């Protein structure tokens, strides 16, 4: 094994990490603001991928698919809030463990429903953009080939995260979301309607999640229901690593997890290619355990 293998594996890992990070942003927002652990995160990511594929088949333009995935996700967030979450978290001052369990179950039911819906409609046949790429051939750097579609997905992911970050940091609406995250009762005492903020968070969080499905599709080339099972657990690790509610934490967490995954995979591939993914995943979860022991609030989270 030589050093260039390690470098290449790391770079590939980072390329994936930014996308992973963006795919976890919606999860961290819902979790941070109203303690809703979205067990349907993976299913919502690939909802975006499937929507992008369908729209692509209709108009042969992947960007139209990306926009529809975003809009549909925003609308889905609105529906999920009013249908599932409002009665559980809407008007409560303090979200207790009991309420958390209820929202957990609600989102779990939704994940099962969505998963079965995908199998029913699409089966497990891979679906993607076929041979489409953004029109630039893949870039060769020495021993490395970087797919332009992956580069596009990375740029879109990072730009989206920065936009969300600036929205939360700079605008009054963003600041009120952070205020509700830190103390919802204090927020109502300055005239912020916590119900409005919670609804908005669900809309934004789920909209960003389905939008990330487009980037995931660009990276994976094709979507199958199984992709949900690959991205959901990693999103959870990223949110815990980055800190609940922290968007920048999600990006940094994504990059770290991508790097660790890529590097472990590269090393294991050298000895036994078949075992590379399972071992890399195991390493990621060892990291999760270490964070929970050493810094349970995550890199950018608040101490409680």
């Amino acid at each position, binding site marked *: 094994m030589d050093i260039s293998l390690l470098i290449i594996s790391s770079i590939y890992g980072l390329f994936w990490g930014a996308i992973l990070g963006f795919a976890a942003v919606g999860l961290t927002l819902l979790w941070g603001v109203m303690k809703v652990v979205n067990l349907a995160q993976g299913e919502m990511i690939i909802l975006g991928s499937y929507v992008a594929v369908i729209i692509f088949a209709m108009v042969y333009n992947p960007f139209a698919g990306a926009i529809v995935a975003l809009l549909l996700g925003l609308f889905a967030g609105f529906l999920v809030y009013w249908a599932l979450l409002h009665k559980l978290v809407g008007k409560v001052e303090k979200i207790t463990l009991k309420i958390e369990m209820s929202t957990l179950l609600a989102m779990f039911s939704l994940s099962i429903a969505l998963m079965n819906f995908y199998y029913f409609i699409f089966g497990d046949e891979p679906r993607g953009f076929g041979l489409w790429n953004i029109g630039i051939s893949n870039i060769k750097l020495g021993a490395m080939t970087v797919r332009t579609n992956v580069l596009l997905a990375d740029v879109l992911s990072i730009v989206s995260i920065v936009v969300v970050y600036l929205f939360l940091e700079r605008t009054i609406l963003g600041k009120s979301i*952070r205020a509700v995250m*830190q103390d919802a009762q204090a*927020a*109502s005492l300055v*005239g912020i309607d916590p119900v409005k903020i919670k609804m908005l968070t669900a809309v934004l969080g789920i909209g960003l999640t389905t939008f990330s499905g487009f980037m995931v599709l660009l990276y994976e080339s094709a979507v199958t229901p199984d992709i949900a099972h690959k991205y959901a657990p990693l999103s959870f690790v990223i949110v815990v690593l980055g800190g609940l509610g922290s968007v920048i934490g999600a990006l940094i967490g994504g990059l770290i997890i991508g790097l660790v995954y890529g590097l472990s995979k590269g090393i294991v591939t050298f000895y036994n290619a078949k075992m590379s993914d399972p071992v890399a995943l195991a390493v990621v979860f060892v990291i999760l355990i270490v964070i929970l022991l050493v810094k349970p609030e995550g890199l950018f989270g608040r101490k409680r």
Partner: protein
Amino acid sequence: MKVLELNSVETGYGETQVLWGIDLSVEEGKITVLLGSNGAGKTTTLRVITGLLFPWKGSVLFKGEDISRVPTHKRVAMGVVMVPEGRRLWPELTVYENLELGAYTKRAREKFDESLELVYSLFPRLKERKNQLAGTLSGGEQQMLAIGRALMSVPSVLLLDEPSLGLAPKLVAEIMNVIRKLKEEEKLTVLLVEQNVHMSLQIADYGYVIEQGRITLEGSRDELEASDKIKKAYLGM
């Protein structure tokens, strides 16, 4: 004119009744104090006024209008603003952001510059620390910021829940001075809830004593200071 009026308000938490028919009013431009020991129902009374808790019986009137069922954030827009017990700042937001969100309602945003100037003139230290996270301030500074944030909401009546709690005597005097100044210079109406009877009577115009969820004594400052009950129970005379 009565800015706030509570008519035989009864309420509590779950099965436990805490208030047993509270009658209380707050006059415009005056400092009214609500005195009582721990667990007497002071904070619960404020929660009913701000809408964090609804009355089981009785009513809460704001400028003559029944607001008993109006949610908290709408009462803030009307001008019922509270500095909650324990400050309740957003620790991960800066001093400036805390103040900025204080002026969240449309009515308050229109007066943003004026309010900010007032807050900075009352508490120059907040201006010096405007870019610092609220969680890193000292206890006294946090209380200043909590009052400042409430002033940003442009209150018609300012409710203060034990602002002296956990502060050194010198800081308590400073806070009381600011409250007096707000009344005299800004014509602000104040309802001050306190355990610190001595300090709060110095600035009060009128006061109530609450015991076990009932008002047991009320009167002007002089009447209260002269009453045997206050002397014995609270002033140690």
